[in-house]
C-alpha cells in the first residue's frame, strides 16, 4: 500500500545499504534507489524527487545535504528531517542506531514511521552482524594461538596434547585470566626465548 512512496538510501557502506534495501523491498516498497557516492547526489535527488531519504549518520556529507535542503530551489519539494518532530522517541531511536531520515514535508506520519523503524532495526541488525563477525574472527584467532601454545608446551615439556591443554587451563584458572591470554604469554615467552 506504500508502494508509491519513493525512497532513497544514501550509505557509503554498500552491505548495510543492501540490507536496508532488501528490507524495504520485502515490505512492498518498489521505488527504492540506493546511492553510495556523494558525487552527483544533488542531481539524483532532483531527478528522483524522493519522498524519504535514509542516510547514515556517520557521513560528514550530512552537512552537504543540509545545504541542499536549504536551497529549496534546487530540490523543489521542501524536505524536513523526520515527518513529525513531536515523535521524539522514534527519532531518538534512529539517532541512537546511527541513521537519520529526511522526509518530504506533508507526508503523513503513519506512512513514514514503518520505514524509519525498519531502517533502525536494519541498522541495529547490521551492527550486530559486524560484532558477531568480529567475535567469530577473534574466536578463530584464539583457537590458533591456543594450538600454538599447546604445541610449544608439548615440545618443551614433553607433554601429550591433553596434558598441555590441562596445564594451560589450570594456569588460566589460577591466574584468573582467559585461556587465550595465557596461551598468548606462552607463545610470546617462547618467541623471546627463541625456542
Amino acid at each position: 500500500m506504500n508502494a508509491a512512496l519513493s525512497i532513497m538510501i544514501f550509505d557509503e557502506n554498500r552491505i548495510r545499504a543492501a540490507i536496508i534495501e532488501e528490507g524495504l523491498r520485502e515490505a512492498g516498497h518498489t521505488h527504492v534507489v540506493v546511492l553510495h557516492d556523494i558525487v552527483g547526489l544533488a542531481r539524483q535527488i532532483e531527478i528522483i524527487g524522493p519522498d524519504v531519504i535514509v542516510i547514515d549518520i556517520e557521513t560528514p556529507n550530512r552537512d552537504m545535504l543540509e545545504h541542499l535542503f536549504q536551497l529549496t530551489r534546487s530540490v523543489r519539494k521542501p524536505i524536513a528531517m523526520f515527518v513529525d518532530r513531536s515523535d521524539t522517541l522514534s527519532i531518538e531511536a534512529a539517532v541512537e542506531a546511527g541513521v537519520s531520515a529526511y522526509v518530504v514535508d506533508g507526508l503523513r506520519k503513519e506512512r513514514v514511521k514503518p520505514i524509519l523503524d525498519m531502517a533502525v532495526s536494519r541498522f541495529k541488525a547490521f551492527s550486530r552482524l559486524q560484532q558477531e563477525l568480529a567475535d567469530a574472527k577473534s574466536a578463530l584467532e584464539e583457537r590458533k594461538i591456543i594450538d600454538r601454545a599447546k604445541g610449544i608446551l608439548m615440545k618443551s615439556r614433553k607433554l601429550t596434547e591433553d596434558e598441555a591443554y590441562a596445564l594451560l587451563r589450570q594456569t588460566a584458572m589460577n591466574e584468573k585470566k582467559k585461556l587465550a591470554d595465557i596461551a598468548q604469554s606462552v607463545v610470546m615467552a617462547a618467541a623471546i626465548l627463541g625456542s
Partner: protein
Amino acid sequence: MSFIPTGIDQHKSGPTSPATIRAASAKLVRAGFIPLVDAAVLIAASELGFATREGIQIDLVKDVSWANIRDRLAFRQFDIAHMLAPMPVASALGLGSNPSPTIAPFMLGRGGNAITLSVELYRRMQEKAGLAGHEDALTNAKALKLVIEEMRAKGEALPVLGMTYPFSSHNYELRYWLSAGGIHPEEDVKLVVVPPPMTSDALSAGAIDGFCVGAPWNMVAVAREVGRIVAVKADIWPSSPEKVIGVRPEWAEQNPQTLSRLIVALDRAAAWCDIPDNRRDLAQILAEPRYLDVPIDILHRVLAGQFTTDPNGTERTVPDYFTFHRQGANFPWISQAQWIFSQMVRWGQVPYSAEAYRQVASAFRPDLYRNALGCRSDIPMEDVRIEGNAEDDVFIDGTTFDPEDIRGYVARSRIRNIGSEATNQSDV
C-alpha cells in the same frame, strides 16, 4: 546562584594548568565536538584539569558533521556541544532540519577562519590585476571580480567555492568578502558545502576553486601546494562570532550549578590557551589522534598565526589569529547574534520580522555568562553594542552594524538576495 567564582587573583597573574584533582562526585558532562582548532578551549578544559577542579568531568565525543552535533544535542546524547555560532540563532528561528531550542552562554574565542583559493585561480588574479602577492583581502576580492568578469565574457564555468554549513560563520564571511569585492555570491560564483577535512582534497581534485574554512585546513591546503590564502577572518571582521558552547535550555535550567562551574572551567581554560608559552603544549594535545589528528608543527604555526600564504613560501604573521580569552572573546554579545540574523535576512534564509528579532535575542545568553563569572573588569556591562565601531574592530567594507536598524542595514547592502524577504522558507 550560590556558586562563588574562585581563582580570580590567580587568573590575573596568569593561570597555570592545575593538577588533576579527582572530585569524589564529579558531575559528568557529555560534550560533542568537531575536530577543529577552535574546540581547543573545550579540550583544554577537559585535558588539563580545569573542569575537574570545578567538580566536572567532561566526556568528549568526536563527531563528523554539524547536523549530527545538532541532532545529538537535541536528543540528549550530548549535554553541551562545540557549535557554529549561527546554529543556536538558526534554531531559535526554526531554520534547518530538526531545529531544537539551543542557547549559547559562552563563545569559544575569536578568529581561525581563512579563505583559500586554488593556485590556478590566484594566478589568474595576479595576471589580471597585477597582484604582487602581499595585497590585502579587499584587493584580492576585487581582483577575483575581474577574473570572474573575464570568465563570463569567455563563457567559462564560474568558480565553485566551498564552505562548511548553511548556518556557519564561514558561509556569511565568505559572502561578506565576495560582496565587499563586488561579487554576488549567488550569481557570480557557486557555493557548495564541503566538510572541512575534505577541503584540500576537493581543491586539489578541482572539484572546487576555493573555500572558507577554519584552522588548520587552510594551512593544510597551502602545505600541499594546492591553495593560496587570500583573506583571514580578521580581515573581514575581527569580532565575527565563530564557535560557541551550545546547551539545551532545559539542561541549563535543571543544572544551573553545573553550567556555572562549567563556564568557570572554560574561562580558566581559555585564559590558559591564550598564553603564548602554552602554545606548544596545546598543539601537542590537539594533535592527538582522538582530537584533531594533525601534525603538531602545523598546529603550532596556526596557533601562533604564522602563515605561509602560498606554495612559494610567502609568509604572513597574523597577530591574534586565535584569541581564546582576551578582549572579551568569550562574551556572548546579543548584538552578534543579531548580526548573524542580519546576514540570514540579507541572503534570504529568513524574512525579517519583529518576532524573529525577539527570538534571536534569546539565543545568546550573556546573563548566564555573567552569572557564573561575577563582576570582572573585562566583562561588559551591556549585552548589545554597535558592532564594527572600534578602531581595532572594523568590517572589511568599513560599515558599522546597529542592531536597532537591521532592516536599514540589510537594505543598504548593495549586494544581497533581492526579493528574498517575500518568500518564506522557514520550515526547511
